[in-house]
Every structure is written in structure tokens, then in C-alpha cells.
């Protein structure tokens, strides 16, 4: 491994657990421990914990913070005026193309943005360049650690860590909490797996203790980025870089729901109006493959002709089938449309389905 890769505060824990480490967005991250299939199923059936400390974290505060963010993010910030409320939203450029997707949390004291590790500097620079003087920004990425705790038994385990009087925040809400009365954390009822659970923000000096505390429960397994990808793809959740990038707009990407039509005055809004009126030329579709694993870059065909390429592609451990995303001409985007994917030397049928792949 190169010396120039960044390590999260949990790096030594991953190595001690025998994780296979890889380069992800410049970070040295665990792709798997026991194995992707095993970790995937452990999260769906019990509890999985994920080191997501590499994700970008910014605090936005000051008098002008609300108006600034509402004018810069696509989703309607008025929907999260309640203290603790959070929402999924997009950061667009003037052309209406996607700089990043992220979650913004209203902690009551300020706004917390958690966004993709790969876009940390792009997000920061864009926000900083556009902010007015009465807004302060702090990059908390290096000062904090972040652990996701996901699975049907997650809340049971967390009650044992936070104490009998602890109640989890409501879904898409964030609240402070204290472990054993002394480790201060923020607990967000959000996640990227489709299972119930939370994401916990802690100071980087406390994150190892939290990780070990969670792992001390036999029902908890450490989960790497490999299973994180199969879990989110089964749910039809998009991944920046695979399912959308700076060349894509939210309408084509199937994320128009995060850009309410009634909201005006944010960066990219006019461009979106035009795209909505004209209708997108291509659309992101979800493709189910009966036998075989479609992978990034594989050709997608319609009646023998190449019409797109696979963006996200993997195996679904829960379904035992292949799953993929691809941008295809809008007229071929209806669920039920039969397409094909060329998997190296074979061509396999691929059916457009309405996400999620895994119906819970």
C-alpha cells in the first residue's frame, strides 16, 4: 500500500481484524473482513458496523446559514426547520449538473453536512466560494470519526451502549447522546443499507473505543466497502461516481424527487426547469440480471445495438442475481423493458425494474 493514502482513526482496528485494505478516494479502507457475502447477510439479519470516517463533514453556521444553504442545495430546507431534522439533497452547478449528493442535518445550533469522501474538496470549495460573510464554515472531517450501525438488531445493541433511558432519534433526525455518560456523540437515524440503524459522529479520539464497544457484542460484525456497495445497490441507492457525476442532471439520474418543483432560487434551478420541460434524453435505469454479474463499463444493448454502459454493477447476495444501473435512452427506461448486457464474451438478458431490487 502506498504511503500517501490517508488512514481513518480506525485503520489499526481493520488491520487487526484481518481486513483486506484498498485505496478508496485516497483513503486506505477495508473492502472486506470475513467476506462480502457473509458481511452483507450479517447486516440484513443482525448488525453490521461500518467505518465511514472518510466521509466529508462540514459545519455551516451563522445568521445567514439557512438562506445560504437553501439557495445552494436543491431540497427545501423549510422541511427541516425542526431541531434535529435532516434531508437528502443535491449540490448542483449553474448548468444543473450534480456536484454531489449529501445529507444536511439541522442540529439546532448549526447545519451539519455529510457528503462523499471523493468530493470533499469540490464540495468545500463550491460552498466556500458561494457563501456570504455572515456564514461560517468548518471542515470537521479530520477531527471526527463516523461509524454506521445498521441491521434489524442495531437498536437493541445501541440501547445497551447508551443506557436504558436512551431512545433513538426518529428516522432522518439527529440528536446528541453520551456513552457511559462521558463520550459525547451525535446519533443520526440515517443509513445507506436499507436496514434500520444509525450513524454515529464522535471525536476522533473516542472512535476506537466506540468501535470496540460495538464489536464486543456477538451479534455485531465489521462490514467493509464491498458489502456496503452490495447493500446500497440492492436498495437502488445511488453512488456518486457510478450512478451520477458532473455530466448528469438530477432528472436524468432519477433524483428529481430531491429537487421539489415548487422550490425556486437555488443554483441550477433554472436549468432543471428546462430539462423538466423538454424531458430528459436519457434516464438512469435499474437492471436485473438472472445469471451473471454485470460490472462497471460493460455494454448495455437493445436488440443487439449498444445503447449504454453499466454504471454500478454487482451481485445481489440477497437475491442471488445480478444488478446494474445504466443510462439508457428515455424511451427504453420503462420497467419491464428487456435489454441485454454483454458480460465479457456472453450476452445476457437484463430487465429494467423499478428500484429497489430487494423489496423489504
Amino acid at each position, binding site marked *: 500500500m502506498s504511503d500517501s493514502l490517508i488512514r481513518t482513526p480506525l485503520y489499526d482496528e481493520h488491520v487487526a481484524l484481518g481486513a483486506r485494505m484498498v485505496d478508496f478516494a485516497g483513503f486506505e479502507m477495508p*473492502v*472486506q473482513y470475513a*467476506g*462480502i*457475502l*457473509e458481511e452483507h447477510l450479517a447486516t440484513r439479519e443482525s448488525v453490521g458496523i461500518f467505518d465511514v470516517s472518510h466521509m466529508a463533514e462540514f459545519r455551516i453556521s451563522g445568521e445567514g446559514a439557512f438562506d445560504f444553504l437553501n439557495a445552494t442545495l436543491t431540497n427545501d430546507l423549510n422541511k427541516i426547520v425542526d431541531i434535529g431534522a435532516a434531508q437528502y439533497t443535491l449540490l448542483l452547478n449553474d448548468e444543473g449538473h450534480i456536484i454531489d449528493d449529501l445529507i444536511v442535518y439541522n442540529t439546532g445550533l448549526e447545519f451539519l453536512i455529510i457528503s462523499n469522501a471523493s468530493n470533499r474538496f469540490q464540495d468545500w470549495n463550491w460552498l466556500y466560494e458561494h457563501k456570504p460573510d455572515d456564514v461560517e464554515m468548518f471542515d470537521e472531517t479530520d477531527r471526527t470519526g463516523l461509524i454506521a450501525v445498521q441491521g434489524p438488531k442495531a437498536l437493541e445493541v445501541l440501547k445497551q451502549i447508551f443506557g436504558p433511558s436512551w431512545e433513538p432519534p426518529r428516522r432522518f433526525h439527529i440528536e446528541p447522546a453520551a456513552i457511559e455518560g462521558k463520550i459525547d456523540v451525535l446519533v443520526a437515524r440515517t443509513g445507506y443499507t436499507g436496514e434500520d440503524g444509525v450513524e454515529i459522529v464522535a471525536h476522533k479520539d473516542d472512535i476506537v473505543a466506540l468501535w470496540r464497544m460495538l464489536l464486543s457484542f456477538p451479534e455485531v460484525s465489521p462490514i467493509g466497502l*464491498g458489502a456496503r456497495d*452490495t447493500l446500497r445497490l440492492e436498495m437502488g441507492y445511488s453512488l456518486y461516481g457510478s450512478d451520477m457525476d458532473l455530466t448528469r442532471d438530477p432528472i436524468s439520474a432519477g433524483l428529481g424527487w430531491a429537487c421539489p418543483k415548487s422550490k425556486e432560487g437555488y443554483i441550477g434551478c433554472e436549468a432543471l426547469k428546462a430539462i423538466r420541460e423538454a424531458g430528459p434524453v436519457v434516464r438512469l435505469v435499474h437492471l436485473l440480471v438472472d*445469471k*451473471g*454479474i454485470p*460490472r462497471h463499463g460493460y455494454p448495455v444493448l437493445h436488440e443487439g445495438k449498444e445503447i449504454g454502459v453499466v454504471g454500478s454493477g*454487482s*451481485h445481489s*447476495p440477497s437475491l*442471488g442475481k445480478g444488478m446494474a444501473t445504466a443510462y439508457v435512452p428515455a424511451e427504453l427506461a420503462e420497467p419491464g423493458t428487456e435489454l441485454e448486457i454483454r458480460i*465479457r464474451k*456472453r450476452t445476457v438478458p437484463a430487465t429494467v425494474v423499478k428500484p429497489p431490487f430487494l423489496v423489504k
Partner: protein
Amino acid sequence: MDMPKDRKYSIDHEWVVVEGDEATIGITEYAQDALGEVVYVDLPDEGETFAVGDTFGEVESVKSVSELFMPVSGEVIAINDSLADAPETINDDCYGDGWMIRVRIENESELADLLEAEAYLASIDE
């Protein structure tokens, strides 16, 4: 690392059990461990013939795809059908139930180029 002595090995991590003029072929424990959990195996049809070194199929895990190389030349006379529904058998029992194909050996002299267990172990130990 398990390396049964009743068989020969190729440098590409396949094992070969010879019975008369037939050879049963699979992948070694080293290979299945490196792959991770196998989710898909692509095997040839009965009747297909291959030369030594030819790609006869593929084995896939979530994160990687590996080609399978013929350790000897021959005609495929049987394939392990159970792997279509239970590819993980390759991880669970790579030397037994995880066998992949059986071929009729075309050229017995090629067997001399295969490795004994100790030589194969030495080749992967660097």
C-alpha cells in the same frame, strides 16, 4: 494450506486427478481463498475440446473474475452441474464436491509438466 498428495497441480492453481485416460479438474484452496465467496461459475459444454493453457471457463466472486486454464489438453466428458445452483461449493470443498470438469486426456506426456504437491506449495510460498 491444504494440498492433497493424491493429485497434481498446475501453476495456475488448478488440481488434476488422473484415473486411466480421464482427468478431473478443479481449483486449489489457495485459489478459492484468494477469490473469496464464489457466486458464479462459467463452465464449457460436454464435447468441447481444449489445448493445454486454453481458457475453459471463468469463476467469479463479487469483487473479481478469474479465468480457468486447462492444465492438460482434452475433450470435456463431464461438467459439475451442481455448481450452477451452488457455486459456493467451490469454497466449501474445492478438492471434492467442488470439482469442475472431467476431460479425456489427449496427450499423456503433458502430465509430466504438472507439479507435485510440494512443488506447487513452493510455487505459492514466495
